[in-house]
């Protein structure tokens, strides 16, 4: 009897130890572990080239991309975004007056966690907050107009390093939720984001190579197929459709948390907006 009790206590202690070992790892540890993982499975790709995603795995596609970017087919669309950014509001102010430094070199700080509102604030949220504060009509999330405007607005931060901070309890909780979403299996095909972009990064899915998670969030919005503008959350929707899942709405809490997590993982990488993707 005494022996049995000792075993029970020992078992309880072991379980206790195991659950202690599961203590949440910090975002910084997550990120460095992920970078080390990609260094192992894709040893030829340098850290700074992660921003090119799958293009970094294929020198031929990269050279075509470079040529395309010299005079990109979205140049005329980008001018429209510039016009929207510079057109003054009815009260005489404009977008530049809403952001520090006239909107230059700030987009890398987004998304951030707003402790007062207890939610993640994306760059698109900040744009709409600016419109609202100046009595203008807000733009729809994930749609073309928002895409064109942010394409230009974010281009003012080209070369800035992504600099997302996860500080405080609420921020950590949002980060963990985003991370859980990235790793949660979803849809009829039962894929998580990570199934492709972590486990199978660099492998082929039909004719296309899969990009790595690090660097996935530093270059949005992008012009797919040359002139079709897609925001980051718009891309989440497309990915979810691909795995036969029901996409969430743009600017939903799920997507904002996911964007927060994903952008944090792209920290220290230079921003480049907009870019061409096929």
């Amino acid at each position, binding site marked *: 009897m005494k022996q049995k009790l000792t075993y029970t206590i020992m078992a309880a202690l072991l379980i206790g130890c195991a659950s202690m070992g599961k203590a949440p790892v910090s975002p910084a540890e997550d990120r460095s572990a992920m970078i080390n993982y990609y260094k192992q499975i894709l040893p030829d790709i340098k850290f700074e080239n992660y921003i090119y995603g799958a293009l970094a795995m294929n020198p031929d596609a990269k050279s075509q991309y470079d040529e395309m970017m*010299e*005079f990109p*087919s979205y*140049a*005329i669309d980008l*001018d429209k975004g510039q016009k929207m950014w510079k057109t003054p509001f009815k009260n005489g102010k404009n977008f530049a007056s809403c952001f520090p430094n006239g909107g230059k070199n700030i987009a890398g700080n987004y998304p951030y966690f707003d402790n007062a509102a207890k939610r993640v604030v994306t760059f698109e949220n900040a744009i709409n907050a600016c419109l609202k504060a100046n009595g203008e009509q807000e733009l729809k999330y994930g749609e073309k107009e928002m895409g064109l405007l942010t394409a230009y607005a974010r281009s003012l931060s080209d070369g800035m390093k992504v600099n997302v901070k996860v500080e405080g309890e609420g921020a950590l909780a949002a980060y963990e939720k985003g991370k859980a979403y990235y790793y949660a299996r979803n849809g009829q095909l039962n894929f998580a984001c990570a199934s492709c972009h972590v486990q199978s990064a660099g492998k082929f899915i039909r004719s296309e190579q899969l990009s790595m998670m690090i660097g996935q969030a530093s270059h949005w919005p992008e012009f797919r197929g*040359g*002139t079709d503008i897609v925001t980051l959350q718009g891309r989440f929707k497309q990915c979810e459709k691909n795995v036969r899942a029901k996409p969430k709405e743009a600017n939903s809490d799920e997507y904002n948390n996911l964007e927060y997590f994903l952008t944090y993982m792209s920290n220290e990488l230079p921003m480049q907006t907009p870019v061409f993707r096929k």
Partner: protein
Amino acid sequence: MAEAIKMRVTMEGNIADVKVLIQHEMETGLRKDAKTGNLIPAHFINQVVATLNGRTVLDAQWGVGIAKNPFIGFRIKGAKPGDKVGINAVDNLGARFDDEAVIS
């Protein structure tokens, strides 16, 4: 309609490399409107003329076979910095697309 056309000229030795983008629907006139079932009227660029200092260097007759938002790239031999490259496109409804660039 200058905002719907964009040109870039770069020099490679004594050859000017010209690249032009035009935003245009390029409707063939053969597609039907999905809702009404009526034909969408043809609307396409049918002539593109490029000039170097006013002298024509390229004259192209286009048709409905060219895709939406066309891109045209060509090279001009013997161009030099300071030369003016012009491009004019006209569509079947008479709308003009003009742009001009000075080679730097």
